[in-house]
């Protein structure tokens, strides 16, 4: 049995068997929410016991819940590790369980309490609440032993899974304590000063093996697409190519002739096929003849529309929605001696997670309840969406947790589209149904990082100081599509598009950053880094343009801008040292630097590239990166995430683009949507600079490499490529144009 999984043989019904588990396990269980001190005494078999964060078993095994969705970024290990370290548990005795979708207990404090893993904020958000909980658990253990031995609790200390009397040396294990201890109805009060100093962490700061790695090298890791159930059918969905469109005419004659096909089901947004084999479902889908209702997005063409976006960004006379404002930008511009202006664009990008979206649903005979298996970033949304599809309520939905084959933002939408496919088909036939999207489906049904256009204006005084900063971004906003309720909650600000545009670490006294919304009905999504990679491309390119205008070294120029951020300067200096920036260009390669403050994580990158002037091909040879994430919970994992995001976003920087013609996505698979392969890999060197600040995020931060690559390309060829991806034809066009650096 895999260590991280709830033992389903013992507890076939993980959500509802908690009561049974607590009564029979004879363990010490703490059921507390992160928001308060709602202690519930163990050993009471009646009443709503809820679900626990930790159970200490008499045999010494300690079961700790992990509340985040792990899609490779390591949170399944790091969150329980934080808990285990603070309570002084022996990590070798810890078994991690994936928490059920109980948002009151497990909600993410960084997202207002919903269970949602995104934004690189799991460790950052759960860090202190988990430690406070764990410290209380430890204190209960100490109090229990103190009472038993008749000594003051302050005479006791802990070693991993052991309580020790400092005076007598007497020891007792956590397992032995669990056999007699009781969780008090009022948990002991813990303040921050009771928490371990960072220097006393035993596991945090050193790397433990991520617990699910073994299952990922022997094929045993189970993703939703792997689920096998008795009486299960396979489903395939032909979805409307344009959002809001519905099937008008459906001709299923040819589809029904495919051997193994059971039924065709008309849905509000597409047509589903049910078959006894996956291959029959796919084949039947190919044989459907469907016409679609018209929409207002039928004539949308992305390559043309971006000109409209660029015009809107440039037209500062119209009103935009303010994102960030400080000082008096108009006054600063009027006294500026030099004014620079620049424009940038970025295309739609596709997530391309390796597991094509899929889900398994088993709706009951009444059509009210269901068991679901789905790789989701938002278990609460999954349960709600399934319930809504059945016209039922969330308590009737049982979510089974599975591994997730890449998420990058695609799996956290409030409508959980790929899950609802399975629920609706299963509801129709009252049998378990596994809906698998082909890669073509995954691209055509894709929800993309929005296309953007940027206009930037900077004012410099007579001493070359950057005194005025104006940035207007024109784009649609992904949050409006993927989570209308949260979009409303944030006052309909284009929060995802604008993230990072305020550049908090730079000293920019007079600035105005705003947004002009475009709404074109394209399916959109948050996607690794959200606005940061496009914004880094635009603003860090512009910073270089300013530096060059002043004849300043781009590194020195940024060090000055970071005058109020010693942590920022440390990171930038570290990457300059790593890359030997001062040596300058070598082997004809261009060198480019980029600095970003993303969500409190400070990251600096330098890229070395060469550009083939004949073909326009860019080759990235090196990326050096230094990052300050505060406390580094799992340093090697942090490095892996930086490497990963740099590699991932290389695609958006160089060749990934989705184009939409007449409202429809033009690309289909990896032959016409190129993603980074091992042959594209630059030499990546990472330095993690841990500091004693609380941990901040890392999963997305490598995506800021776009700025470094853009600047390196400009350094190599002497002209700016102003649209991302910087494809060969765009590079050639820039070289051929007369505009200078």
């Amino acid at each position, binding site marked *: 049995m895999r260590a991280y999984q709830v033992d389903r043989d013992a507890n076939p019904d993980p959500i509802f068997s908690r009561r049974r588990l607590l009564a029979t396990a004879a363990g010490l269980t703490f059921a507390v929410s992160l928001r308060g001190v709602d202690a519930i005494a163990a050993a009471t078999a009646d009443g709503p016991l809820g679900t626990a964060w930790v159970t200490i078993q008499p045999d010494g095994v300690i079961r700790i819940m992990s509340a985040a969705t792990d*899609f*490779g*970024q*390591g949170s399944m290990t790091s969150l329980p590790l934080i808990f285990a370290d603070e309570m002084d548990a022996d990590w070798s005795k810890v078994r991690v369980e994936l928490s059920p979708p109980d948002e009151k207990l497990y909600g993410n404090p960084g997202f207002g309490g919903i269970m949602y893993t995104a934004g690189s904020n799991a460790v950052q958000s759960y860090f202190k609440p988990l430690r406070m909980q764990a410290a209380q658990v430890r204190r209960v253990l100490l109090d229990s032993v103190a009472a038993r031995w008749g000594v003051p609790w302050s005479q006791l200390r802990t070693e991993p899974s052991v309580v020790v009397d400092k005076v007598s040396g007497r020891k007792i294990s956590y397992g032995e304590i669990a056999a007699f201890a009781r969780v008090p109805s009022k948990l002991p009060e813990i303040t921050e000063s009771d928490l371990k100093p960072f220097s006393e962490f035993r596991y945090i700061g050193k*790397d433990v*093996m*991520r617990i*699910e*790695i*073994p*299952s*990922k*090298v*022997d*094929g*045993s*890791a*189970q*993703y939703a*697409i*792997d689920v*096998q159930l008795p009486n299960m059918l*396979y489903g395939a969905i032909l979805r409307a190519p344009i959002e809001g469109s519905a099937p008008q005419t459906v001709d299923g004659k040819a589809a029904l002739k495919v*051997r193994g096909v059971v039924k065709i089901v008309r849905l509000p947004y597409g047509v589903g096929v049910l078959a006894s*084999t*996956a*291959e029959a479902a796919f084949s039947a889908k190919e044989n459907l003849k469907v016409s679609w209702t018209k929409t207002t997005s039928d004539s949308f063409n992305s390559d043309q529309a971006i000109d409209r976006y660029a015009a809107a960004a440039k037209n500062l006379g119209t009103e935009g929605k303010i994102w960030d404002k400080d000082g008096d930008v108009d006054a600063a511009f009027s006294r500026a001696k030099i004014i620079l202006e620049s424009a940038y664009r970025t295309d739609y990008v596709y997530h*391309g*997670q*390796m*597991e*094509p979206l899929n889900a398994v649903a088993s709706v009951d005979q009444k059509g009210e309840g269901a068991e679901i298996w789905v790789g989701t970033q938002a278990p609460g949304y999954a349960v709600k969406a399934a319930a809504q599809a059945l016209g039922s309520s969330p308590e009737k939905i049982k979510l089974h947790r599975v*591994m*997730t*084959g*890449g*998420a*990058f933002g695609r799996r956290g939408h409030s409508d959980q589209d790929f899950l609802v496919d399975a629920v609706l088909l299963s509801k129709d036939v009252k049998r378990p149904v596994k809906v*698998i999207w*082909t*890669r073509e489906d995954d691209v055509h049904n894709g929800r993309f990082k929005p296309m953007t256009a940027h206009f930037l204006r900077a004012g410099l005084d007579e001493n070359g100081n950057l005194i005025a900063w104006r940035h207007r971004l024109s784009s649609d906003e992904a949050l409006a599509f993927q989570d209308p309720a949260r979009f409303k909650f944030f006052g309909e600000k284009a929060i995802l598009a604008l993230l990072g545009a305020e550049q908090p670490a730079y000293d920019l006294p007079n600035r105005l950053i705003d947004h002009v919304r475009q709404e074109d009905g394209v399916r959109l999504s948050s996607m690794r880094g959200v606005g940061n990679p496009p914004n880094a491309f635009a603003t860090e390119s512009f910073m270089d343009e300013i530096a060059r205008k002043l004849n300043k070294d781009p590194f020195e120029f940024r060090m000055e801008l970071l005058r109020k951020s010693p942590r920022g300067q440390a990171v930038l200096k570290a990457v300059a040292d790593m890359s030997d920036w001062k040596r300058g260009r070598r082997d004809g390669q261009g060198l480019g630097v980029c600095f970003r403050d993303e969500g409190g994580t400070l990251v600096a990158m330098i890229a070395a590239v060469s550009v083939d002037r004949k073909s326009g091909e860019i080759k990235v040879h090196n990326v050096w990166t230094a990052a300050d994430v505060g406390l580094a919970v799992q340093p*090697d*994992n942090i490095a*892996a995430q930086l*490497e*990963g*995001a*740099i*590699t*991932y976003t290389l695609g958006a920087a160089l060749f990934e683009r989705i184009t939409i013609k007449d409202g429809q996505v033009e690309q289909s*698979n*990896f*032959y016409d949507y190129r*993603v*980074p*392969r*091992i*042959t594209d*890999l630059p030499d*990546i060197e990472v330095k993690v600079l841990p500091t004693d600040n609380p941990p901040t995020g890392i999963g997305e931060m490598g995506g800021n490499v776009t700025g470094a690559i853009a600047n390196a390309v400009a350094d190599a060829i002497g002209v700016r490529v102003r649209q991302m991806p910087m494809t060969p034809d765009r590079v050639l066009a820039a070289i051929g144009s007369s505009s200078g650096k």
Partner: protein
Amino acid sequence: MINFKLNGKAVGLDVPAETRLLWVIREHLKMTGTRFGCGAGLCGACMVHVNGERAFSCQTSLSDVKGKSVTTIEGLSTDRSHPVQKAWIAERVPQCGYCQSGQIMSAAALLSHNKNPSRAEIVEHMQTNICRCGTYKRIIKAVERAAREG
């Protein structure tokens, strides 16, 4: 009935001959370690060995393996003891893990023919396998380690 050897065991299936081996393995035989990624022979998630050579199981039909020996990730070892698997754990290669079966099968095929590949040879060979999480740097290190440690 089409007969072949799967991880050393004889199997016979009464499934249409043109059925892709990927779906035979995953959904008919319920061995799900071999992954579906693109269905077009472009991503490598579905890689298996057929008579010792790596092959895209999404591009291989059942009739193609008649009388042949197929190895999947499950058959590489019973206990993660294949040198490539050991190296993969030591180097902490996997992130989401979905592409990793195919990566490992691809790497194992390389090392069965080339005991000491250069970095360039590793990169050339492994370009058939996409990893969207970006574990390529560690894949290279792991293959080098597996070659070293055997």
